[in-house]
């Protein structure tokens, strides 16, 4: 097998490595998640510098090493520079990247997740719609793609479809009053459930039309944060800490 490969990828993360290099986490529909060294990319004059940044889509020429790729050339296809103009959108975009980075195994191709992230990043770049709602949409779709889709249609235990419904992280979905006996549970308001259902069913392009009051957005965020934590085993996200720091809630 040739040690030189071509791949289209987006950059999830860029860290400084040594004196002038950068260590990138690439995510490609062909080769999946991969670590790649971008030699000299800290230098403003480097040909790699402009592409060695998050929110970049590029074609890479990669040299396969023992544990890392080394970038030999890159051609930037698109830089989502609009994201930088809004700190919240910027942090949400990186939260999506962190979620992908933490849930996808190295070298595992996952084109559907790639498309989802690309789509959501483009929407953040255009600064359309509510970024927080887009992040909830992203979480729901990620759960779906990772095989942890929360069951929201009817009671997970008996199948009945009449409200009110309850929720806990470990049951994998909503459950009815009868099945709630003896279980830890929280009540799920009809409005929040309807919101989750519509997010789960809609394509990314429609999410920008969705709006919700601050209280409901907080509820949605907490529900999904705990659910995601339970099923993926990821306890914390640096980007969520950051979002809390810049929040004026």
């Amino acid at each position: 097998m040739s040690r030189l490969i071509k791949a289209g990828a987006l950059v999830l993360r860029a860290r400084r490595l040594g004196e002038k290099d950068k260590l990138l986490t690439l995510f490609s529909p062909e080769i999946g998640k991969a670590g790649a060294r971008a030699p000299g990319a800290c230098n403003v004059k480097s040909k790699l510098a402009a592409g060695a940044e998050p929110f970049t889509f590029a074609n890479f020429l990669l040299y396969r090493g023992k544990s890392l790729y080394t970038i030999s050339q890159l051609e930037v296809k698109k830089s989502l520079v609009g994201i930088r103009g809004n700190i919240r959108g910027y942090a949400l975009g990186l939260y999506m990247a962190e979620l992908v980075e933490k849930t996808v195994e190295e070298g595992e191709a996952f084109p559907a997740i790639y498309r989802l992230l690309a789509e959501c990043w483009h929407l953040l770049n255009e600064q359309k719609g509510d970024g927080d709602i887009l992040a909830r949409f992203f979480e729901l779709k990620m759960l779906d793609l990772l095989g942890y889709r929360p069951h929201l249609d009817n009671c997970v235990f008996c199948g009945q479809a009449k409200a009110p419904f309850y929720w806990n992280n470990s049951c994998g979905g909503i459950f009815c009053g009868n099945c709630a006996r003896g279980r830890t549970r929280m009540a799920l308001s009809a409005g929040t459930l309807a919101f989750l259902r519509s997010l789960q069913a809609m394509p990314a392009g429609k999410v920008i039309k969705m709006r919700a009051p601050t209280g409901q957005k907080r509820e949605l965020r907490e529900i999904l944060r705990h659910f995601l934590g339970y099923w993926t085993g990821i306890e914390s996200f640096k980007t969520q800490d950051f979002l809390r720091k810049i929040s004026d809630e």
Partner: protein
Amino acid sequence: MIFSPAITRLIEALRRLPGIGPKTAQRLAFFVLSMRKEDVEEFAHALLDAKKRVRQCSRCFNLTEEEVCSICRDPRRESTLLCVVQEARDIYVIEKTGQYRGLYFVLHGALSPLEGIGPEELKIPRLLQRLQEGEIKEVIMATNPNVEGDATAFYIAESARPLGVKVMRIGFGLPVGGDLEYADQLTMSRALEARREMF
């Protein structure tokens, strides 16, 4: 290979330096051991002395041995103009152009969601406080021309908007990426000249 405890300690200490891997740390440690005793003493003394004397300027957070750095104390500098940089070393890149006559402010980093570094971990609250004092009329955001530097500049510009200060961004034209510390004199001069109002 097993090293003596003292050598291991030296290697470990060297490894804490940025860009030093285990191999380089070993090489450096053996080099130190081959040096003359007086030179090693001078080396250790220089480390301790610099650490003891150098601190952050109380006005701009540049590195200095004084309470207030020489730039902040210089009466010939334009006191209504403030250039915001990520690191103290970036000041030298801009000073070398000889084009800038205002004051500086060092953030000591950039906003970084993936590292969890928010405004409070940087000097951003102190900067906004400084702008509130009213003497500064124009701010030049000279954070790195990359994603983090841009996002930090936009965040500060947005926060400073209600204060009525004019906020400019150095211009590199297209997104370039990279760190300011590696910009040569000509590139830096051009970027300063090409500065534009952010809003």
